[in-house]
């Protein structure tokens, strides 16, 4: 299949920005009132619907702000706390534009969370250390072929967004049952990412 034809259908690109340093115990508790407040205030561009509480699940989804177009969550999957943007409806543009869109939404939410009084001084995210997951196994199976297809585009987006310094891309290839997942680490890069806005 031609390169662009294979790329074009890929949607539902999730981005998780990792929190810096281990977070204090009980940090998820604060997410509940914060996310309820975000619904009241319409804090995100998406239609925000409800808050789902999974604090009891170890290394689980944490606390999720359920939206129609996307969910935002303080997520603990893999034992690592982060702000996860889970894109549920289609995004416009090319693959690179969709990836950048998801990254920017994740970043905006992360920055908003950092400014909330409940998290002031105790929660900080690393905008240059993140994970990209394509949440659709049929369109992007966890294979070498997908990696070869997407790697240059992921690299291109984060070179532009995070600066020209060393950028490490690591494909989580161990389990073919998993979704396609790439860890992006430019921690040595500029901490001021370039966003479209």
């Amino acid at each position: 299949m031609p390169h662009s034809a294979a790329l074009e259908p890929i949607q539902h690109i999730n981005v998780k920005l990792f929190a810096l340093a281990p977070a204090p115990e009980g940090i998820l508790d604060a997410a509940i009132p914060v996310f309820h407040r975000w619904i009241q205030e319409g804090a995100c561009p998406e239609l925000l619907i409800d808050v789902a509480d999974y604090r009891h699940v170890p290394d689980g989804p944490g606390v999720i702000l359920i939206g129609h177009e996307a969910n935002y969550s303080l997520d603990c999957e893999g034992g690592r706390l982060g702000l996860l943007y889970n894109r549920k409806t289609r995004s416009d543009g090319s693959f690179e534009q969709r990836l950048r869109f998801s990254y920017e939404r994740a970043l905006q939410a992360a920055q908003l969370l950092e400014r909330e009084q409940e998290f002031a001084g105790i929660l900080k995210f690393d905008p240059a250390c993140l994970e990209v997951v394509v949440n659709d196994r049929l369109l992007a199976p966890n294979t070498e072929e997908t990696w070869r297809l997407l790697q240059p585009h992921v690299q291109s987006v984060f070179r532009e967004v995070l600066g020209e310094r060393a950028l490490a891309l690591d494909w989580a290839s161990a389990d073919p049952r998993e979704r396609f997942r790439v860890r992006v680490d430019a921690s040595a890069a500029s901490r001021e990412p370039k966003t479209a806005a």
Partner: protein
Amino acid sequence: MKASNHLWRERLAAEMPPQLAREIDVFESELTLRKQGKIEEKVFAETRLRRGCYGQRYDNGQRHDGIAARTLRYPSGELTKGPNTLWDAPGMQRIKVPFGGLNARQLEVLAELAEEYADGIAHVTTRQDFQLHFVHIEDTPAIMRRLAAVGITTREACGNSVRNVTGCPLAGVCRDEVFDVTPYAKACAYFLLGHPDCQDFGRKFKISFSGCRDKPCALARIHDIGLVAAARMEDGRLRRGFEVYVGGGLGPVPYQAKLFTEFLPVEELLPTAQAIARIFARLGEKKNRNRARLKFLVERLGIDEFRRLVAEERAALPHDPAWTSYLPEAERFEEKPSRSPSRLVPLESSNGGGFARWTATNVYRQRQPGYVTVTVRLPLGDITAHQLRKLADAARRYTPEAVRTTVEQNIVLRWVSEADLPALYEELKQAKLAAPGAGTIADITACPGTDTCKLGISASRGLARELERRFQQAGETLDHAARSLRIKISGCFNSCGQHHVADLGFYGVSRNKYNYTVPHFQVVLGGQWSENGGAYGLAVAAVPSKRIPEAVDRITKKFLAERSDGETFQQYVKRTGKAALKQALEDLMEVPPHEVDASYYTDWGDAREFTTEDIGVGECAGEVVSSADFQLAASEREVFEAQLLLDRGEVKAAAKLALEAMLHGARALLNLPQNAAVEDQVVVDEFRRQFYDTQLFFDPFVGGTFANHFFRAWESRNEPPTPDGVRRLVSEAQLFIDACHSCRGRTAAGAAKR
């Protein structure tokens, strides 16, 4: 919603059974026709329910955000998927798992679906199903196709149909069973699936299979048909059969199933189930949904007449070879292990304290020497996609992929060779699936409640979460007698959390305090889990939600301090009496004013001020206690005392007091001064005129049902009471009084708004 939805049909064409594939194609067409407005919304609603596509809270597009009721403006606008159910609103997909049986590949597919279409979690229900939450209706055909490709159908998971056929998770390995019920449960499930005689029910229909009478694993007595394995010698041959119970059910008012027959030969299992289905379809209530379960039909007819009708129906049935064609294989059915047997002596020998604690509660020695069944305890029945994959790995490595879900919302791995236990434990520990305490007080069952259910009144999961957290902190300090208690929590009176059969049961209610609506739970004590759900508890007191943990603590401490040697909790409750237990909780029932402690006015895990209606808060903070509140308090006291009379066998007095309690509740709503000389008939008539005919009293889900309890109690006041009848009357009186509270809260807030 998902970009790949349209691709799965072709991708999985060769893997789906043709019949299932066709059904899903039809459903997908119906979806399209509904979007075009060519199928009526009510019809589409029943269609999707019969495919397990359920609604969720706020799917009418309205949600109170803690400040005000807001409209959720979905892109699809006013397009609906059922009456008052918006198209784009997130829903729930229920996935049937007959007798709870799954293999490794099925676990993996569930993991994929949880990640791609839901919130990353697969939830095990109290009927051994799986549920996925926050699913879009347009994703459901793809979900169904992916499930069909691994042999799972969602057909008739909801709706007026035969629901998931449940079965003992230890069937085939249990030390106490009469025989392995697995092949019979499976045959029943697939024989009745889509059967023409099961398409015209007025309500749902639930069947369960137990391997023995004493253990509760499949709760035969709370089902429409409960089957308990039995055997008898005939002509020198051991003949398999079932002790059959019919007409059980929980819901707002629980009914114990009646014994239909002591022995039904296996050859008669399917034709009898079919005959019962036909009777239910023909004679069951269809208009009034709240009286449409089989239990009401059995009650109306009486068990003898019901039996006669079924026998007559059975005799008239045209023969179906499917009734018996499965039997030779069922006789021979035997699950085989994948690894050789071995002993680990003692069972908790190695790996230190954690392993010892885990084996003490989570490991069951099978009747086959050298093998154990391991329970994976899931917090609130939830498991992540990653954990599902790890479980699939473990199932492949250590078992013949013999995995079952349980009605206690856990998962078991069968046929584990004992010597493999330490390695399995380490793997489960890595995956955070090695929580000890299965089947103990820390292993709490809770329905979804206000998290996602439209009917939820109080936060059953939030409360369960808090209690589990506290028990985890308490660790091993709890006495064994307390640790063996069972807690079950329902978000409302519909008892999906099975609170009636718990030692400590709770169901969500609300109370009006200082013109606020405050979340509470009714404390239900003395239910019997053993003997297949052998007896139901009764409500003791309504305690504010935020004080339930203290109530649990107090009741368990009291039990430990006062119990006699070897006395069970149920025996203790009976001996102590509910009056004394209520007294022990009385101070916990107090609610401070909002300005003193606002935490009472939110529920567990929810930052919003509690509400059951989309209304604002009144301004009568200065009011002390009104006449109406006095009368409602009197009605609460009277219904409680009616329970005590019933416990003492004073049936006639209990019936009289239960009715008086209801009359007091009605007087309270009518704002009659205390002791006003108004005749009871006038009270009934005025209540009907002012609250029933106007529908002011109506509950959003059950409509006028609770008022009808009152009217029925009044009309039958001169009939000779029976113990069963009065037991139900007392339960109905409690529901009526709860509804009086709700109604009073609504009318008071409405008056304040004006």
